[in-house]
């Protein structure tokens, strides 16, 4: 026995010593010289390249630090008017997209049943001909669902699909469709405005999550900083109206909780008071239409429906109309309802009433730069759902996906999966194997954006077009999606080949910029301007001239939102919110973003259910208990985190986790709250009403293991124990 023990120890000792040897010794670094020196590269000295961030739809300017041909660090481009040198966490983490171990490394074809997720490599040539011949076999039947790519790529996609009589949908769950629809109704303008937060003195926000993920978060974050601290004479005041205490609400001077879906009514009450107290700047001609609409609402009824006290409503109205430059904005939970567009129209009306359009501190409309072929309308979920069914377009046809993941972002209740099942061929150009790409028959992977040419036309804010250049040599056997479409056009021949005759996408981008510069400054040598644009990261004007609005639309309806699920059976409102780091799930395969603590709860690497501590205790739920959240359409299980910022009748869960595919960091982690949603739509905008499903909760009796960075949980617990848990 003793002998054996000694032997054992010896072996362990040797093992321990041995395991350390290669650990350090093996790395005895090698100095690998270049075989041929590269003129532009000095080892140890960084090259910085300007490009455009494509991690969300904003398109901030970036500069990338490249050493010995490797991208090492990304910073904001100090010249770019959108972000002025700043960058958000997603932008920082995009390096982990470039170096992600789960990138698709070459063309693949399905091996096994569709959706099984098994693939085998296929040569590029064969992949291309399979794709193109499928397109040729289905004249007029092809559908491309792409993320919005405002710029040359949008032009290429649109032209290609038009020429082959197919359809292209630019789709993105956070596209703020209701805002566009509302602006069309209120102002007669089709593009997104700039909200001049920096010069606002009183900001009244109805749920707009502009400090976490709304429209252009870096831009608004910086503007917000200037509003609060950038002016010596005034610190802008900021009131956030929303049911749940979001990160943005937590930064406000005052948070006004409100019943979900009644934000528009509150705006109507405020509007009525502004008119009543004679504080409107509205031209006389327009006034009667507004008066007529407001006449049928009474403040006390609205107070009743919204849950906001009458004195509070009066106070909000007075603060708003007495401010030097007031601004009302709406978004997030306020617009993600079945009455989202109407709500935003009612909020827009407040701006019309005080007349802050195209004034400093108000709403300004800058026409996007006249960059060629940049405008392509972004669609809402309804447009995609219309693809369903045997008589509809996508069936027995070719379905193509470019960096859109509808099988994750659309709730199963919409049965969008049908579109995949009915398609003859599903082709994806995604660099990652996300849920939708896993359903593909053919994967023709695009480069990562840091390896590609491209451009991005900024909407709203200021006239700007960012120019993206490859900052590193492509790591894998991938091809730029632009080249693929140009190549396909070439194989097609005929009209589409004629319209898209560029040899490669880089040339196409360059030619678009040549046209653009030629039109702006005829006769100027292009080469110098092109090089300057590459160095600077694009083209922009410091400040555009705002365009005047063509109409002043009064609100036309202020119905409370509809909710799916009876109040008796499903007593809770349910709000899935885009998580700060993972957004609508795109960030889930980047470890840096997974370990970014949620700003309100400090949770990392997982899902959680936010419940008001009082409610939780009523249900006998301790923090970290696994709770089942059930809607009429599905159920999820996740650990409870006490969240005093929720009203007692609202349950919230972050979006972003719960991937069934998308690589090792994302897969099988947490739950996807979108799975619970009813297929309710805000009709005027066609956007999914994310906040319109009711739920109930059930104890599971089991414990979960959420990781809270703030392990002491002091903040939350103090509230609970002191009995201040009620929101």
């Amino acid at each position, binding site marked *: 026995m*003793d002998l054996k*023990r*000694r032997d054992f*120890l*010896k072996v362990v*000792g040797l093992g*321990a*010593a041995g395991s*350390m*040897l290669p*650990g*350090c*010794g093996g790395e*005895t*670094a*090698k*100095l*690998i*010289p*270049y*075989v*041929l*020196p590269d003129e532009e590269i*000095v*080892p*140890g*000295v960084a090259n910085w390249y300007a490009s455009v961030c494509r991690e969300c739809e904003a398109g901030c300017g970036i500069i990338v630090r490249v050493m010995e041909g490797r991208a090492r660090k990304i910073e904001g481009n100090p010249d770019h008017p959108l972000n002025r040198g700043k960058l958000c966490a997603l932008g920082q983490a995009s390096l982990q997209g470039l170096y992600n171990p789960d990138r698709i490394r070459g063309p693949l074809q399905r091996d096994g049943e569709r959706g099984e997720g098994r693939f085998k490599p296929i040569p590029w040539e064969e992949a291309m001909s399979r794709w193109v011949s499928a397109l040729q076999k289905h004249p007029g039947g092809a559908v491309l669902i792409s993320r919005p790519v405002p710029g040359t790529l949008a032009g290429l996609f649109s032209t290609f699909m038009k020429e082959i009589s197919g359809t292209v949908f630019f789709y993105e769950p956070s596209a703020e469709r209701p805002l566009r629809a509302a602006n069309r109704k209120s102002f007669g303008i089709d593009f997104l405005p700039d909200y001049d937060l920096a010069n606002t003195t009183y900001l009244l926000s109805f749920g707009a999550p502009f400090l976490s993920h709304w429209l252009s978060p870096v831009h608004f974050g910086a503007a917000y900083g200037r509003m609060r601290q950038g002016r010596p004479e005034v610190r802008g005041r900021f009131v956030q109206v929303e049911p749940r205490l979001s990160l943005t609400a937590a930064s406000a001077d005052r948070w006004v909780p409100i019943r979900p879906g009644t934000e528009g009514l509150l705006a109507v009450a405020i509007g009525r008071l502004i008119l009543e107290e004679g504080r409107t700047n509205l031209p006389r001609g327009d006034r009667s239409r507004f008066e007529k609409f407001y006449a049928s609402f009474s403040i006390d009824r609205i107070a009743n429906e919204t849950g906001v006290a009458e004195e509070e409503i009066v106070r909000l109205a007075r603060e708003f109309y007495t401010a030097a430059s007031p601004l009302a904005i709406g978004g997030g939970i306020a617009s993600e309802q079945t009455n989202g567009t109407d709500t935003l129209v009612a909020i827009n009306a407040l701006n019309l009433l005080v007349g802050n359009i195209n004034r400093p501190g108000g709403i300004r409309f800058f026409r996007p730069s006249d960059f060629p072929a940049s405008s392509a309308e972004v669609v809402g979920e309804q447009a995609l759902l219309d693809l369903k069914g045997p008589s509809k377009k996508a069936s027995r046809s070719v379905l193509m996906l470019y960096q859109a993941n509808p099988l994750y972002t659309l709730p199963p209740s919409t049965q969008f999966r049908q579109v995949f099942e009915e398609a003859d061929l599903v082709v994806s150009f995604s660099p990652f194997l996300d849920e939708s790409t896993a359903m593909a028959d053919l994967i023709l992977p695009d480069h990562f954006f840091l390896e590609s040419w491209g451009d991005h036309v900024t909407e709203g804010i200021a006239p700007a077009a960012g120019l993206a250049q490859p900052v590193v040599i492509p790591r894998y056997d991938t091809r730029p999606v632009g080249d693929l479409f140009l190549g396909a056009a070439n194989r097609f021949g005929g009209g589409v080949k004629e319209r898209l005759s560029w040899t490669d996408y880089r040339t196409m981008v360059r030619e678009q910029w040549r046209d653009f510069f030629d039109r702006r400054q005829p006769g100027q040598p292009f080469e110098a301007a092109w090089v300057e644009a590459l160095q600077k990261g694009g083209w922009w004007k410091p400040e555009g001239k705002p365009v005047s609005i063509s109409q002043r639309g009064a609100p036309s309806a202020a119905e409370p939102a509809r909710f799916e699920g009876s109040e008796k059976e499903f007593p809770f409102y349910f709000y899935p919110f885009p998580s700060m780091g993972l957004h609508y799930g795109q960030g889930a395969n980047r470890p840096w973003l997974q370990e970014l603590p949620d700003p309100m709860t400090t949770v990392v690497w997982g899902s959680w259910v936010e419940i008001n501590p009082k409610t939780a205790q009523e249900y006998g739920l301790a923090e970290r208990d696994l709770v089942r959240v059930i809607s009429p359409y599905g159920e999820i299980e996740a650990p409870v985190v006490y969240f005093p910022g929720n009203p007692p009748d609202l349950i919230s869960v972050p979006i972003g986790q719960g991937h069934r595919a998308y690589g090792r960091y994302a897969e099988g982690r947490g739950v996807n709250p979108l799975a619970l949603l009813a297929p309710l739509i805000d009709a005027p905008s066609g956007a999914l009403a994310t906040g319109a499903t009711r739920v109930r909760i059930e104890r599971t009796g089991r414990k979960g293991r959420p990781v809270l960075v703030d392990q002491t949980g002091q903040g939350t617990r103090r509230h609970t124990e002191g009995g201040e848990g009620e929101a």
Partner: protein
Amino acid sequence: MRKWVGVLLALLVIGVAIIWGALYAQSTADFMGHDRQPIAFSHQRHAGELQIDCLFCHRGARISPVASVPSVYLCMTCHRSLKEQTPETEKLLAYWNDKEPIPWVRLQRLPDFVQFTHEMHLDAGFQCADCHGEVERMSQTPRAATFEMGWCIDCHERNGASLDCFTCHY
């Protein structure tokens, strides 16, 4: 029997400590008596007999934090026109013909938390030999100094250079 186990454990602990220590020293500053390079390159021959300036090959030193090793192409600018080859220069030609870089073994290495730049030290008027020794007299290239913090600080003190932590650790 129990005594034996005790002794054995003690020996084990000491052994592990020694190996650990040696490895620790090695990982912060590489320690190798002599280099075992893929090609027996001689600084004595190149820098001494042929009087090639250090910076001719280590081109990065003037303009970069790292001194850098010459590209194979740079070696070949001379070696391509040599008539007589030795077994060692044949190896060089083989790398060149295969378009392969030479995997030189790295002798000097500072840990990641130290920021050192050659450029600044040359700008301040130092010679390569001040730190690296008289390589022109060495056929194989050992380390001339420890390159540990005490050694840096000594020199910084003697020359009145900054002693702030953030000078090198940032």
